[in-house]
């Protein structure tokens, strides 16, 4: 019996000891990730690495959706037809073109998340002890991302790096955001490098900052308007600033390229101010080319007949015939692709699905389009495409013309400047220049480059009607705050109309 008690005791002891020894403090060190020590506070990173990562973020603009879609599909230069079973995509494209998007639209959300996520990263660079030039580049990039956010959505939320995820970001009004962005650029410009034209101009430069400042001031009347739908008034002082900035770009060595399609190749061009080294222009041809062409595209977007008919022969910008010399991609022309299409050896192409000859037509419905409907557009050519361009001199040149037209003072007239460009493009000179002429000229020069919406808003044409677009809601000059963003930050208020 004593023996038994002893045994009992020893078992209890063993049991209790084991209890003690097995207790854990439940702290397991992660072995497969980098933990930022010190809890929730901001941890500075390597400014150089962060800056490189931020430049990579620019690649998001090369996608055919999000920022690009919001900038072009909603305008009179592009139509995203639903082609039978292709391109229905849950209506995202149709609603953009027809102007009946809502706050749950995926491109709206995509652009919102992308732009703000990228803008936040630039804050991290600035807070990570960069050198003066790195800081200037970060400020330029922040201005670039915030500019797009302000242009699309009006109000711009802002989070300091010291504010953790539990803090609801404060929200800058469109006017405050404008001042913030301009201040960033004005602060940055002194420390930005002076870089002349190059086909691989993927770094922030003085010229790029001037370009963005010019664009901001040209549109200041829109961004500072008490009602986003207008009316917009453009101050002469702002227009003079536009002219000043464009002249500064020219003084950095930029000018018009005599060969229009050379601009979009990898060859040197005096026009190229700012590009993205990340991503490629591939989506620009894939989204429009037919799948039976080489490269085999997605057979998607086309231009509208009315837009195409804004051109008059002669005009370099209308396009170039394909090489048809048996070379790679020799079947693909440049500019507007219309009528029968050929392979690189010059043999006519057939649509493999419908077994009809492949002839692109002017007419194109928004829904129920046959595969060959719509004129296709090629600026970057698969055979020789260069880096994706955000800023080029012709845009600046036309901004200057417009600034003069809107009351800015200069030794040249707006008409002279427009005709200077038209001459470079091999087009006949205009005899007079109305506002409509200016908008049309911007369209002819800058088609499918991503910024038509901003121009149409500034010219008060965005609520107008065009092919397959009958909705005339003027509140659509601003996109809605995405529904998920609205529920995540109580400081945001939905834009009027949505």
């Amino acid at each position, binding site marked *: 019996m004593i023996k038994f008690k002893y045994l*009992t005791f020893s*078992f*209890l002891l063993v*049991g209790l000891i*084991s*209890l003690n020894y*097995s*207790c*854990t403090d*439940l702290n*397991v060190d*992660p*072995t*497969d*990730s*980098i*933990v*930022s020590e010190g809890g*929730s506070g901001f941890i500075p990173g390597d400014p150089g*690495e962060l800056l490189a990562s931020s430049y990579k973020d620019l690649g998001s603009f090369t996608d055919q959706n999000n920022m690009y879609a919001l900038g072009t599909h909603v305008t009179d230069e592009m139509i995203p037809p*639903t*082609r*039978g*079973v*292709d*391109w*229905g*995509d*849950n*209506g*995202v494209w149709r609603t953009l073109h027809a102007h009946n998007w809502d706050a*749950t639209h995926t491109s709206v959300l995509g652009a*919102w998340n992308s732009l*703000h*996520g990228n*803008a936040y*990263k630039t*804050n991290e660079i600035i807070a990570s002890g960069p050198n003066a030039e790195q800081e200037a580049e970060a400020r330029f990039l922040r201005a670039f991302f915030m500019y797009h956010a302000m242009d699309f959505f009006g109000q711009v*939320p*802002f*989070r300091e790096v010291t504010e*953790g*995820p539990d803090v609801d*970001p404060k929200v800058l009004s469109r006017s405050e955001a404008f001042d913030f962005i301009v201040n960033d650029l004005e602060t940055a410009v002194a420390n930005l490098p002076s870089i002349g034209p190059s086909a691989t101009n993927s770094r922030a430069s003085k010229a790029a900052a001037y370009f963005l400042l010019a664009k901001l001031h040209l549109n200041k009347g829109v961004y500072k308007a008490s009602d986003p739908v207008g009316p917009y008034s453009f101050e002469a002082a702002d227009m003079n600033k536009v002219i000043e900035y464009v002249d500064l770009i020219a003084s950095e060595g930029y000018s018009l390229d005599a060969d229009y399609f050379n601009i979009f190749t990898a060859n040197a061009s005096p026009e190229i101010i700012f590009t993205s080294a990340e991503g490629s222009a591939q989506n620009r041809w894939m989204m429009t080319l037919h*799948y039976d062409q080489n490269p*085999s595209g997605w057979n998607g977007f086309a231009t509208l007949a009315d837009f195409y008919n804004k051109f008059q022969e002669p005009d370099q910008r209308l396009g170039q015939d394909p090489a048809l010399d048996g070379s790679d991609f020799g079947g693909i022309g440049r500019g507007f692709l219309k009528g029968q299409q050929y392979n690189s050896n010059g043999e006519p192409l057939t649509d*493999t*699905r*419908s*077994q*009809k000859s492949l002839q692109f037509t002017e007419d194109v419905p928004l829904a*129920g*389009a*046959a595969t060959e409907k719509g004129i296709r557009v090629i600026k970057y050519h698969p055979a020789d495409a260069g880096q994706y361009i955000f800023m080029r001199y012709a845009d600046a040149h036309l901004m200057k013309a417009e600034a003069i037209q809107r009351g800015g003072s200069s030794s040249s007239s707006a008409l002279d400047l427009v005709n200077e460009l038209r001459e470079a493009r091999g087009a006949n000179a205009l005899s007079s220049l109305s506002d409509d002429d200016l908008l049309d000229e911007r369209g002819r020069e800058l088609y499918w480059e991503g910024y038509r919406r901003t121009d149409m808003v500034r010219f008060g044409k965005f609520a107008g009607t065009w092919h397959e677009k009958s909705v005339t809601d003027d509140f659509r000059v601003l996109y809605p705050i995405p*529904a*998920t*963003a609205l*529920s*995540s*930050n109580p400081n945001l208020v939905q834009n009027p109309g949505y």
Partner: protein
Amino acid sequence: MEKLNSHFLKLCLFIFVSFFVSSVSFGQRTVSGTITDAETGDPLIGANVIITGTSTGTITDLDGNYSLSVPDDAVTLSISYTGFTEQIAPITGDVVNVALSAGQILDEVVVVGYGAVKKSDATGAVVGVTEEDFNKGVVVSPEQLIQGRAAGVQITTASGEPGAGASIRIRGAGSIRNGNNPLFVVDGVPLNGSSSTGGGNDAGLGSSSARNPLNFLNPQDIASIDILKDASATAIYGSRGANGVVLITTKKGSGQKNKIDYSFNLGFSNITKKYDLLNADEFLDAYAQFNGQAAAASLDGGADTDWQAEILRTAITQGHNIAFSGSTDAGNYRLSFGVHDQEGIIKESGFQRYTGRFNAEQRFLNDRLTIASQITLAQTKDDNVPITDNSGFRGDLMGNALKLNPTLPVRDSNGELVQPSQTEYNPVAILELSEDYTNTLRGLGNVSAEYKLTNNLSFKSLIGFDRSFSSRNSAFSRDLNAAGIINKGRLYMNDIQINDRLWENYFSYNNTFGAANLSAVLGYSYQQFNYYTKGFEMTNFNTADPLLMINNIASANISGGNAIVPTNSSNTTDELQSYFTRVNLGIADKYIFTGTLRTDGSTRFGDNNRYGLFPSLAFKWRLIDEAFIPDLFSDLGLRIGYGVTGNQEIPYNLFQPRSRYSGWDINEGGDVNGGGLNAVSFANDDLKWETTTQINLGLDFGFMNNRLSGSVDVYRKNTNDLLLQIVSAQPSPQPFRWENLDADIINNGVELALNYVAVDISKFSWDINFNIARNINTIQNYKGINDTGGINGQGLTGAFAQRIQEGQPLYAFFLREFGGFDAEGISIYPNGDKQEFVGAQPIPTLSLGLTNSFSFGNVDFNFFFNGQFGHHIYSNTANAFFTAGSLANGRNVTKDVVGNGESNLNAPDVSTRFLERGDFLRLQNANLGYTFETGSLPFSNLRVFLTGQNLFLWTQYSGQDPEVDTNKSLNGIPSVGIDYTAYPRARTFTLGVNVGF
């Protein structure tokens, strides 16, 4: 295989010959008498009277009388009657009268976690399913054994693929995100919820889900499966109890004799239903209607190929199981080996498993110390085919078998595979030019020692382990004309390792104080979970041989760059430390109280919520022991239970600010992306488990000495603190963060289980088992909106079919209302071209199971129906492939597309056009068996059987099978009830024999 077959045939022949020679007669005399109820003296009608030790016998008539002719050497009669104790009466003369007394109702024991209780004492909602009630036939993983057998337990396998993953919902889904499966506990070792094998990333063909992690368990080793449904029962598992707990108990040695059991089965499976596609002529005619005869002629490949038939086969499954077992006064052992070799009905697919299990128990020191161990080792091999969840407009293997132009031949005149283009794949080429398999070695086991400190108190310590090594290789040959593969080849290698350890220590106490009985458990548990993954992706192969690609990876030519990338690796460790107690107090055998408390500390929670407390209380009133209950009842008990449980199945460490280098990927064009350093989680010290509060009210009843018995349960389950990835307020370093939301998911339900012994007479019995359950699910107080149910296919980028929103059931369908086609053949949406809730949901609101079991002497027969009702299925397959536009593009379609009025230019947007009722009733299982008299045979038992699975299906669903659940999750929110080119289901017939020595 051929050798095996011939052995099997010889065995069958032997069995049947022995059957015919086994009837031999001796001298006879007649015995008669009356059988009565000892208590009342009433005659018992239909009582069994059998000559002891034989199957010869009769039943009593309306007056309780019998008359039976017995051989001269017969000594006793065995008299039995449902609900009465069997009596063996000596044959003392020509008249043998017997009075039977009402017997103790056979009391099953149910396992409840850290112990077992008599079913009649169980205070919670607990169902036990034992081996005889298991589903039979070709069964890969344990949960299929109980599919449809327990009320309120809904088991849906994702597809017909051998070993496909399953979703198991006990009393509905309580969580929006992943982690709705119950906790599985095998012989006391709780399993982690992670996949032990890798999902697939099949080049441009989409990605596929992992197979069922329970496949490593041999169903033949399982003795019983007990399901804890309500919170009062599952609270003992605390933070893992919210979705219910499934306790699996494996077989032990029993009986005083050493025994060898061998079983063999051979199954044949065929597809139940192919899609009704156009043949070559019909296809050309239909195509010509859109594009003209000339176009049709240019499309004509001259053959008439049934692409579905080209990839399907009659699949053969065979299994061998052998077990050695025995027991003594002081212990028992069982050693078993199993082989399961299953072909899938799609060529090249299959599942093989080799298992060994050793269970032993030995008592020492006058039975005070019990050492026990259960260990299993399993080697499985999954042969995968590229049937994926999310293939794009090009389709996966199944998609191409459905859509490929039927006029194309499989091979050209030179015998070369015809490979039309990089959007239209030859499914035979996919099969022949790819190799994809997963090898997994998994060991699960435990060793325990239990010591009786006193006669009332014992202490048990258990050490458990779960270790698994899995390696998946997927190779696609450079000869396969597919985007991103042609002229390059593509290889994925993915490894997963699991290393889980468990140590539990607990005291059990049991004592009686007068009329009160007290039993209690108090313990500590520590479990560690380690999960390791790594993967590589390679391209630019010099060889076209997929096996060489896998086994000689240097055949990837890396000199050109971009030929090999690390897709990534990860290594995560979690710990769970728990203290638990349960007290059972029974008073006068009438009032039983159970109180449970568990506190779980988990490394998955933030610093402020490291420990959670999970209490429960339950009470059972055994009304049957009250005097006022009429004699009509043979059992009556009222149960009420309340408890709080948690769900901690959340991803690893979401509470610390962490960054990881993201995985690399080689895209279709051969470009390499990834490698960026990204934040994967933020600081959130408040992060915690989801909390489920459940109240349960149950009634157990029995009539006619439990000839009819059953139970009814009503419950309300409320899940709060929903853990979700929510959108961060931008600007923010990452788009999402994790947070517990103060929203509720309510599941209300009723369950009924009935058992009725319809006939129980000599040589004939008929048992009916029925269960039915209704569950209604609603989301409340939820501010967010989440879209899920991503729909893939041509022109369906960004399309989705389900939305999570307040006031709706989980995963409610969110679609355009389809109103037919207009005169031009374009879809009409009467409510506008916008998505809306359409009053349909994918989770069945009613499910039932019905088993009828018969025995006629040595023959037994049973069949089992399983039904699910009240839900809808969205056919992504039809949406992506069966439209006029698809046909006009030269793709095959189902016959109903021709002449349906749709224009070839119509966009088939996500709408109710592709939504169908999912209700079905299935004849899931039917078994016919014969048990031989083994008197003159060298066996202790011998049984042959024939099983049919999935024999008949009543449904309106036009797809292959309405029991389908393709993984269409979006942003981490799972989907339910979407069918996208799912691996088809089979009908299976299995022949088998069980022999015991």
